[in-house]
């Protein structure tokens, strides 16, 4: 099956963008929502040998309904291995085996640093957020980090209020200087407007593709840092028929992905 159907939603396109970053045989650590959907789209299309794990302790789960948390009951029956946090976060992630980590943030900056701790001042926050959870170690140690964010000046920032999870921190060379493992860090920010990648030289996010319906001008205006634009910037490839089929018929028959439209992913 080929072709690009027209009746897709923005969250579906974003999930497909995430899927395309995953290679066959990758070991992927996922949360709920977009990460699970992206990783599974990849498994049902171009990366049948990719394997998923959840930080709670599960490897290669076979859920029969969409998991609503990384501790969801549906992750238990059928998994290849179940342990706990020390197994997945310790042995597999810190052990250096995880290829891809998926993160979302309440605030993401130009170096891919992520804030999930507090908006405003830490001691007296305007809004207290959940905290790191697994995000900091995933951002520190996964070889390739994919970030999902809403594209506006509230969710993107020149500098996050609090660095919960390291991107390139202060720019080129910082991760290496501090002793984070070589060849790790964020590779892409997938937003509801386009796909940003990180410059090899400046470690700053630039615009690579804009989603159908968005434009370079619109995205530059919505980005709070001086957004560089790729020389070959082009429109994001819409979801392919086989990607949508995997998503709608196998992974998310109840179309729970639509809740993201209500959260602003349009």
């Amino acid at each position: 099956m080929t072709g690009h159907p027209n009746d897709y939603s923005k969250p579906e396109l974003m999930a497909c963008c995430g899927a395309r970053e995953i290679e066959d045989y990758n070991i992927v650590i996922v949360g709920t929502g977009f990460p699970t959907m992206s990783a599974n789209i990849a498994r049902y299309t171009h990366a049948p040998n990719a394997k998923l794990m959840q930080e709670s302790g599960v490897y290669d789960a076979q859920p029969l309904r969409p998991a609503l948390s990384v501790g969801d009951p549906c992750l238990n029956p059928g998994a290849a291995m179940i342990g706990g946090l020390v197994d997945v976060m310790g042995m597999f992630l810190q052990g250096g085996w995880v290829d891809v980590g998926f993160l979302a943030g309440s605030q993401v900056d130009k170096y891919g640093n992520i804030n999930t701790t507090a908006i405003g001042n830490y001691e007296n926050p305007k809004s207290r957020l959940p905290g790191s959870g697994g995000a900091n170690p995933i951002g520190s140690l996964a070889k390739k980090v994919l970030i999902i964010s809403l594209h506006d000046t509230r969710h993107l920032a020149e500098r996050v209020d609090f660095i919960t999870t390291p991107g390139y921190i202060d720019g080129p060379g910082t991760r290496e200087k501090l002793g984070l493992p070589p060849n790790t860090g964020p590779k892409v920010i997938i937003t509801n407007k386009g796909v940003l990648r990180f410059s090899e030289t400046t470690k700053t996010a630039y615009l690579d593709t804009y989603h159908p319906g968005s434009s370079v001008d619109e995205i530059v205006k919505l980005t709070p840092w001086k957004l560089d634009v790729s020389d070959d910037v082009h429109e994001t490839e819409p979801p392919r028929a086989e990607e949508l089929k995997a998503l709608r018929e196998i992974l998310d028959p109840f179309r729970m992905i639509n809740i993201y439209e209500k959260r602003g992913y349009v």
Partner: protein
Amino acid sequence: MDKITNAREAIAHHLKDGDLVFIGGYICRPPFSLIHEIIRQRKRDLTIVRSNAADDFDMLIGAGCVKRFIATFISLGLYGLARCFRRSIEKGIPHKIELEEYTNLSLPLMLMAGACGMPFVPVKDMIGTDLTKIKSFLGENKYKTIDSPFDGKPVTLVPALNPDLAIIHVQQADPEGNAQIWGIGGDCKWGANAAKKVIVSCERIVSREIVGKDPSRTIVPGFKVAAVVEEPFGAHPGYTPGFYDVDFSFGYLYQQASSTEEKFNEFLKEWVFDIGDRTEYINHYIHRFGYAQFKKLQAKFDYSYPVSYSY
């Protein structure tokens, strides 16, 4: 030795005000029955610890039982930010708790170190982030950075944790406390073994002989266990693999109830203070939502292939 008791006695005898208490669970097997007992007995000034906290920790914070929280994360999952936690941090209601923040890698390893009698453990996360800049009640002992004595490279060390008490919920345990789980573990095994003593609540008490039919499932040996409590449905509204599912509609009820201080206190009255024990809780649940809803949560059976340890 038979350690079987009830939740009221177990909490009254083994948890003191001011204790550092590990609470197991990861949506999977939260020891909710024991948590309600802590709230009912109005325990105070606790330091609570677990990786990935949820509605159970939020409830303890809202009920005023908590002074300090060694945390990595807290939310209501599908239902968003933890309301009582936010009210405490943002508005000091009922009071502002103190937070020491780690991650889902470093905290489980701190509990592992505590369980293994190690004084500290090296971790590869947190560096370069603001998590290293905020220090609360552990002060300079939150972490240390040294040059590794082996290769001279910088390494982050975090301290071992040894809670005064661990409370966990498991599928089955014998009267001595040998506790068995299957399914998602979170940091339960390490937190329980790091603690000076453990209260085990379980879906069913089984004989020592049954435990011996599949001893690889045991996560805590009886000699560490102070009390064993049989509490069917004891993890509700969380789940226990093989017994019952997550109660998502109750999760929504809790989100709504915890959205204001007044509604939260009404919730506590209805589900904790006006309830004597877990049996009354189940009866109240069935009375409120009907037997069909209770029945709907019960797990289907799909047994694993029997294992043999014979030689």
